[in-house]
C-alpha cells in the first residue's frame, strides 16, 4: 500500500504538477479515496483544459471514478458495465490501486464525478467539477 502510494506520488512528480488540492487550471489533480469518499470532492478546472486525474483507492474495496453530467451519472447508476477504463474520465480502481485518466472539459458548465458500484453513489461517493 505504501509502495503504491509512493508510486502515485512518483506519477504525480512525473507529470510535474502534482498537488493535493484541486487548483484551477492544474493539469494534474490527485484524488484520494478513503472510507468511500472522494478527496477532494469539489474540483475546479479551466474551460477547455485537459486534466489528468491520478486516483488512488485507499479502501479495501473496489471503487469507480466516473466523470459526466447528471444524465451520464444516471446511466452509470443503472448500467451493467463491470469495468471502466477505456473511455476518458472513467476508471475502475481495485482496492489499494492507483489509476490515471485524462479528460478534456467543455467550455463551461458543471459536471459530476461518482462511483456507481451498488449503493456507493447514495452513500456519498460523488463530487462536483466546476468549469470556469
Amino acid at each position, binding site marked *: 500500500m505504501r509502495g503504491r502510494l509512493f508510486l502515485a506520488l512518483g506519477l504525480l512528480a512525473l507529470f510535474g504538477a502534482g498537488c493535493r488540492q484541486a487548483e484551477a487550471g492544474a493539469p494534474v489533480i490527485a484524488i484520494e479515496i478513503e472510507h468511500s469518499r472522494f478527496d477532494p470532492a469539489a474540483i475546479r478546472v479551466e474551460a477547455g483544459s485537459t486534466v489528468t486525474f491520478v486516483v488512488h483507492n485507499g479502501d*479495501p*474495496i473496489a471503487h469507480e471514478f466516473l466523470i459526466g453530467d447528471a444524465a451520464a451519472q444516471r446511466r452509470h447508476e*443503472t448500467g451493467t458495465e463491470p*469495468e471502466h477504463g477505456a473511455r476518458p474520465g472513467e476508471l475502475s480502481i481495485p482496492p489499494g490501486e492507483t489509476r490515471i485518466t485524462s479528460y478534456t472539459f467543455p467550455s463551461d458548465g458543471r459536471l459530476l464525478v461518482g462511483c*456507481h458500484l451498488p*449503493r456507493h453513489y*447514495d452513500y456519498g461517493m460523488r463530487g462536483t467539477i466546476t468549469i470556469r
Partner: protein
Amino acid sequence: MVEGEVLLQLGGTDEPERAFGALKHIHLLSIDRGGRKFKPGEQSGGRAHLRGVNLKPQGGVMRTVRALVAGIIVTLLAAQPALACGGLVAPDGAVNLGRTTTLAAYHEGVEHYVTSFEFSGGGSEFGSIVPLPGVPTDVVKGGDWTLQRLILETQPVERTSLFNAVAEDAPAGQSATVLQEHKVKALDITILEGGGDAVGRWAGEHGFQLSPDAPEVLDFYASRSPIFMAVRFNLDRARKLGVDLGDGTPIHLSIPTPNPWVPLRILGLGAGPRERIEADVFLLTDERPNLLPLPGFAKALKLDYSEAASDLLLADLRSDKGMKWMPKSDMWLSKIVVDGTASELSHDLAIDPTGRVTPSAVAAGLLDVIPELPPVGDETQQWWAWTIVLMLGAVVWRLANRFIGSAS
C-alpha cells in the same frame, strides 16, 4: 434441536441465476458471484417472517427431560419473533433488516458470545463479519435452546398463550492473519487478526462483497480490537448435511477479555442512515452490570429487563449444550433492546460485569483509542497532553449535546 426458523422471501427471483442464498446474522455481506457487477433492480428487497420451529427429541431420561423443556419452549415460542437475523446485503447492495438476538455472558473473565446464523436459501453464498473483543479460545456449535429460553424469560406475557484451530503464517504486508478456522455444520468460520484495511482486503479476496460503509466501520472496530470473525455458508456442505431453508446454526464463542463489549454499530453495516436497526441483546453477569452508553440516554438502546436470573432459568440454560460453565445461581439477567436508526447506532455496548466501575468509553466506541505518549522530551509530551485534553473535551462536549438532544 429447537431452532426458530426464519424464511427470507426475496422478490424478483424468478430466474434461477438470480436466486441467492443468505446467511443471516448481525449483518450480512454478499459473496461476489464470479466478479460480476450487479446493479440495482436486479434483486428486489426481501422480508422475513417466522416459519416455525423444529424439535428433534433425544433418548434417555435426561434427554427426555431436555426434550420436554425444549418442547415447552417451542410451544411458547410459536409466535415469537425471528431469531438472530440481521441486515442482509444482497448482490445489488440492498439491505433487508431483521431482528438479531445475541447472548453475551461474562463469567470468570471470559465473554461467552452466543448467536445464531440462519440459511435462507438460494443458489449463492453469503457471509458475515463480526468484530470480537479478543481471540476466542473456543468456537463451537451453540446450545439448542439458549437464545429461545432467554426470550421466553424476558417476555413472560407471551406465556399466556400456553403456559480446531489451524494457524497460518501471516503473509507479508498488510494482509490479515488467519488465527483459526472452524467448521460448524454448514458454516465456515475464520478468526482473523488485522487492521480494517487488511480484514477488508481478506474479505474481498475471499468473495465477500463489502458495502460502501464497510471500510469506515472496519477501521472503527480495528482501532480497538483487531480480531474479527468471518462466517460464510458452505452450500455444498449444507446439501450434504441436509440443512434446510431457515435452519439456524447457533455459534458459541468463548473469549477471554478483561473488557467485555458487544458490537452494535456493525448491525447497521450496509444500511442507510435512516434505516431502522432492531436487535435483542441478553447479558448474563455475576453482578448487576454497569453499561455504557446508558440505555435510555443512548437513543437506540433501552434496558428492557434487569433482574436476578432465576435458578430455574439458569438450570434450563445449564442443561443446554456447552452451557455447563454457567453457575447454578447468582447471575444477573439484563435485556437490552436495540431500536433506532443506523445513524443513531454509532457506538457499541461496553459492560462492567462487576457493577462497580464505569465501563470503558473506548470499548463502547464512544472514544477513540488514545495514542501512547511518545518517549521524548517534556515539551513534546506537554504538546501531546494538551492535544489529548482538547480531544477529550471535544468528546465530552459532543456527548453532552447528544444526551441533551435525546432528552429533549
